[in-house]
């Protein structure tokens, strides 16, 4: 079933009786060409691009919960391509271009909204860094506008510009940045993959990875064994648990990042704002809730919930930047499990086991990477060579020290990235 304006009109006039489920609920077959472990955004995108770009349709996506129930349904929906380091910058640039054509590609409204993103800065040094980053973004064909205080006042006049602790000098504006409806991204990729014959197997937890003579043969699952010559791991915060089934330890620690949403308010913030005091960022969803968050809680966690000190800190950030929010009520908060790598950059690579591929290390920035990650991971699985824009995301960079992409210049400590 294709979605179109005409179809919406027709269904509206005939009682909406013609809609069918977005994807099938198949029984797992005994063998596939490729198995993807993890039915999140990255796993689903990988399946979609395996089928649509590489013509590989004998693919199963194994999900232990339900489609869209992991980090892809629990993030703050920001999409951007304003990275600084070679290796990352071209990858996120590639991903943003895929976002811009995604709705047509998937025939699905993911509500991608290029409302812009502004990274504020609070010092001369930070302004220099922003100018450098902006030039770098423009030199690879992306967009950036360096704004002074007056220009920021015109764009977002409701900030507290007069505060003394972290005065707003200006900002680096990235007009093509923005947001997308996170659930719709999962559903759109799931539906598109399903339509090309990919089996999405939910409630199917992988309990073992079968390896014989250094080659993968398949997986054991709660719904029985499934054979495959190629297996892609895309389990985000649970990557270490999945890799442990193949006897691997990863350069990853899982950390908790909290996010917050207020009650629905009238439209007031029409862009995405980031504030370097404590990694704070905020945007407004189409339902009206203000969506915001800050830094990691800074300790390892699989609990999917954080502690109050960081909640207090993030809300202090919000009120320092925007005193108008003092009366907004926080409706809910949650914590996600972040696969923090040791240089703050992802890993998209083969492993030492033949046929086993790894996609992890997205830290707290995996959502914007969803199409790019799926696209390059599919390329790697299909062709056994890294995609041009992801050739820096090697697993062995930690061992050799060559090609480390340390965006925060924080060194080998996961929670500082």
């Amino acid at each position, binding site marked *: 079933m294709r979605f179109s304006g005409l179809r919406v009109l027709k269904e509206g006039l005939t009682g909406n009786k013609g809609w069918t489920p977005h994807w099938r609920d198949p029984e797992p077959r005994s063998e596939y060409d490729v198995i993807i472990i993890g039915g999140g955004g990255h796993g689903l995108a990988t399946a979609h691009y395996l089928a649509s770009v590489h013509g590989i349709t004998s693919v199963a996506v194994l999900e232990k919960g339900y489609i869209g129930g992991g980090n892809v349904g629990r993030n703050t929906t920001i999409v951007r391509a304003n990275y600084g380091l070679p290796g990352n910058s071209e990858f996120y640039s590639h991903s943003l271009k895929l976002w811009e054509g995604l709705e047509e590609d998937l025939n699905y409204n993911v509500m991608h909204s290029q409302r812009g993103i502004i990274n504020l800065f609070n010092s001369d040094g930070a302004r220099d860094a922003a100018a450098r980053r902006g030039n770098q973004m423009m030199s690879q064909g992306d967009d950036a506008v360096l704004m002074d205080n007056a220009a920021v006042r015109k764009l977002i006049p409701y900030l507290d510009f007069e505060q003394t602790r972290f005065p707003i000098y200006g900002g680096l504006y990235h007009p093509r940045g923005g947001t997308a409806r996170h659930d719709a991204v999962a559903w759109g990729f799931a539906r598109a993959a399903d339509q090309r014959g990919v089996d999405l197997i939910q409630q199917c937890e992988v309990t073992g990875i079968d390896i014989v003579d250094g080659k993968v043969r398949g997986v054991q699952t709660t719904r029985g064994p499934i054979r495959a010559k190629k297996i892609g791991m895309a389990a985000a915060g649970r990557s270490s648990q999945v890799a442990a089934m193949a006897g691997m330890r990863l350069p990853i620690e*899982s950390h908790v990042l909290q996010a917050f949403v207020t009650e629905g308010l009238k439209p007031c913030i029409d862009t995405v704002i980031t504030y370097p005091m404590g990694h704070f960022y905020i945007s407004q969803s189409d339902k009206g809730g203000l969506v915001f968050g800050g830094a990691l809680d800074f300790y*390892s966690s*699989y609990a999917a919930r954080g502690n109050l*000190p960081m909640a207090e800190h993030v809300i202090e950030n919000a009120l320092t930047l925007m005193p108008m929010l003092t009366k907004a009520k926080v409706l809910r908060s949650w914590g996600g499990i972040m696969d923090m790598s*040791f240089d703050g950059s992802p890993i998209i690579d083969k492993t030492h086991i033949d046929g086993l591929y790894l996609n992890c290390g997205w830290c707290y920035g995996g959502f914007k990477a969803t199409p790019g990650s799926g696209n390059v991971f599919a390329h790697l699985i299909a062709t056994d060579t890294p995609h041009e824009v992801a050739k820096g995301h090697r697993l062995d960079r930690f061992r050799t020290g060559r090609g480390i992409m340390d965006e925060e210049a924080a060194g080998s400590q996961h929670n500082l990235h």
Partner: protein
Amino acid sequence: MRLPCPLCGERDLREFYYQGAAVSLTRPDPDAGADAWADYVHLRENLPGDLEEMWHHAQGCGAWLVVTRNTATHVVKGAKLAMDTKRADTKRADTKGART
């Protein structure tokens, strides 16, 4: 989350700095080779459940602690001084004649 500092008693999370899994207690020998050092610096078990980890009581007594905490539930099982743990290890290693 509150951590039981052996010197100060139970204290608020905000008084502590976190350094991750307590791998620094078993630092490889300087001549152990690049692979051993790469493993030590980067590779982690990182499984949910009880984890021994390093916390620094930075806003308190300044001691480094080895805290046992469940990463799936945040339940803190106990804390001891890293100094004591390290000294016990050193003593053991010395009696074996190993390099410390």
